[in-house]
């Protein structure tokens, strides 16, 4: 389940280019084998058991704050279809919004790294957009775009936009001077340089951004749903409705489903990332 700690070498936004060999070598068979050993999973299991016991104790002491675990479980199993439907709505909004944000941010990253004029015009606005709390924009967007899926896509896209823009732009610009000079003496064109050198160089940065942005896209979708609840479904709507009717098991079951969804998305990014780097390795073997 803990996907995140298997690959923690994702580059930070503005640091050195990630040229260390480990990033480009084949996966880590040792870390896979390690999961067979109890030492690897037992601590997590014990911790989960402790947390469950604490929860259960809390639910008995404060029944109006925490629902008992079996109630959450039975809500999940008896209304399984309800959760799946809403999860798919939220997932659809999150992924579609992410896709829109990704395309926009990637194109803009290419433009800003190639044209200083665009960089000077766009970057300050992007920074302001980034520090503006999107939760505050959400109600305004609902007013503007109605209760349909559009405001959800826009918010999920906006929340993903900035990390992708900054990371991709950093990756495109972080090509070493000597590499650039080698291709400059061949009179490489701007597009050739972009395609053969800059974009592949940016790929590790793009994946670092995707790891941040996939969970964020769900946050964006849920925030938008909560601002326009009672409309077209989704787990955010489900939480909103259930908490107004004091159905605590439904609230926490929905939160659990959201968490699982986030983990699954992260897993997808990790698998794709491995595939892409694997392609870098193996296309020539």
């Amino acid at each position, binding site marked *: 389940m803990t996907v995140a700690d298997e690959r923690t070498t994702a580059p930070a936004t503005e640091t050195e280019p990630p040229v260390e060999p480990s990033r480009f070598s084949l996966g880590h068979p040792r870390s896979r084998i390690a999961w067979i050993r109890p030492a690897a999973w037992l601590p997590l299991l014990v911790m989960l058991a402790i947390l469950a016991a604490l929860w259960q104790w809390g639910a008995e002491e404060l029944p109006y704050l925490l629902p008992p675990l079996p109630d959450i479980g039975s809500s999940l199993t008896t209304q399984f279809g309800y959760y799946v439907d809403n999860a798919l709505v939220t997932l659809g909004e999150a992924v579609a919004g992410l896709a829109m944000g990704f395309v926009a941010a990637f194109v803009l990253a290419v433009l800003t790294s190639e044209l200083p004029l665009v960089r000077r015009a766009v970057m300050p606005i992007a920074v302001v957009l980034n520090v503006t709390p999107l939760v505050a924009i959400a109600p305004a967007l609902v007013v503007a775009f109605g209760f349909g899926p559009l405001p959800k896509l826009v918010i999920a896209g906006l929340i993903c936009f900035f990390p992708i823009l900054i990371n991709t732009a950093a990756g495109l610009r972080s090509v070493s001077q000597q590499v650039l000079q080698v291709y400059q003496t061949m*009179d490489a064109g701007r597009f050739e340089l972009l395609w053969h050198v800059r974009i592949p160089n940016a790929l590790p940065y793009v994946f670092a951004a995707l790891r941040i942005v996939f969970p964020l896209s769900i946050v964006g979708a849920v925030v938008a749903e909560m601002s326009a609840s009672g409309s077209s479904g989704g787990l955010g709507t489900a939480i909103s409705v259930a908490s107004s009717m004091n159905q605590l098991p439904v609230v926490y079951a929905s939160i659990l489903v959201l968490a699982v969804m986030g983990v699954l998305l992260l897993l997808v990014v990790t698998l794709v990332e491995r595939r892409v780097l694997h392609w870098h390795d193996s296309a020539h073997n």
Partner: protein
Amino acid sequence: MTGTPALELRSVHRIYGFGSSATNALDEVHLTVPPGRFVSLIGPSGCGKSTLLRLVAGLEQPDHGEVRVHGVPPAKACAAKLIGLVPQSPALLPWLSVLRNVTLPQKINKGAARRRERIAGFAERDAAPSAPDMRELLVKAGLGEAMDKLPAELSGGMRQRAAIVRAFGLRPDVLVMDEPFSALDEFTRESLQDQLLDLWDELKTTVLFVTHSVPEAVRLSDTVVVMAPHPGRIVDIIDVDLPRPRGDRLFGERRFHEYEDLIRDRLRRAWHGEAA
């Protein structure tokens, strides 16, 4: 057009900075190199040897004077892929195998062959070499086994060899090398010098080689250009008249040491002349 020199610098000046803080990197430099020569630039740091190389490679422009590569300005020579650059670090792309790294130049600037034909005297030359040639070159450079490996899996010496093969693969008419062996240990350095000479022997490219190692300059070059700093200038041009191929035996010979002493003497004199 056999009379066209491979390289020609006429009263070249290059100044960095402005006013009182200006540095005269190159002052009134003249240099003519006939095709096929192996020329080393040697001198203490600050003598402008790297600047000269960057001017030839079209990475910088002179403030005064003219730089010509086969009779055309460096920018035009680059557009026709007449120039191959080997920088100080190998500058390989970490996501491509060695073979892909050295064949990438063929995919870039495909109009170069056409432009090359238009430059006088190159009509009869063949265009960019085909892929099998690159494999052959890699094998020749001792990288046959490493062809499909990633740069990160190679030693420093192998990486630098790959960078040299990449430059030779362009079939450049002028190969400019900026202290390409300076980061390598003594043994690797000597074996790479051997391999560089082998490749050069076969392809007969004009080479402009920046170094600050006197034995390296003598071993490799037809001509050693001695430079001095403040202002950066050429103080002497010494032709090294030693037989080729130059194997290990040469190191023990007196003629080799005489050239070494001569160049050291010129370097020292340039240094003291400046101090006086």
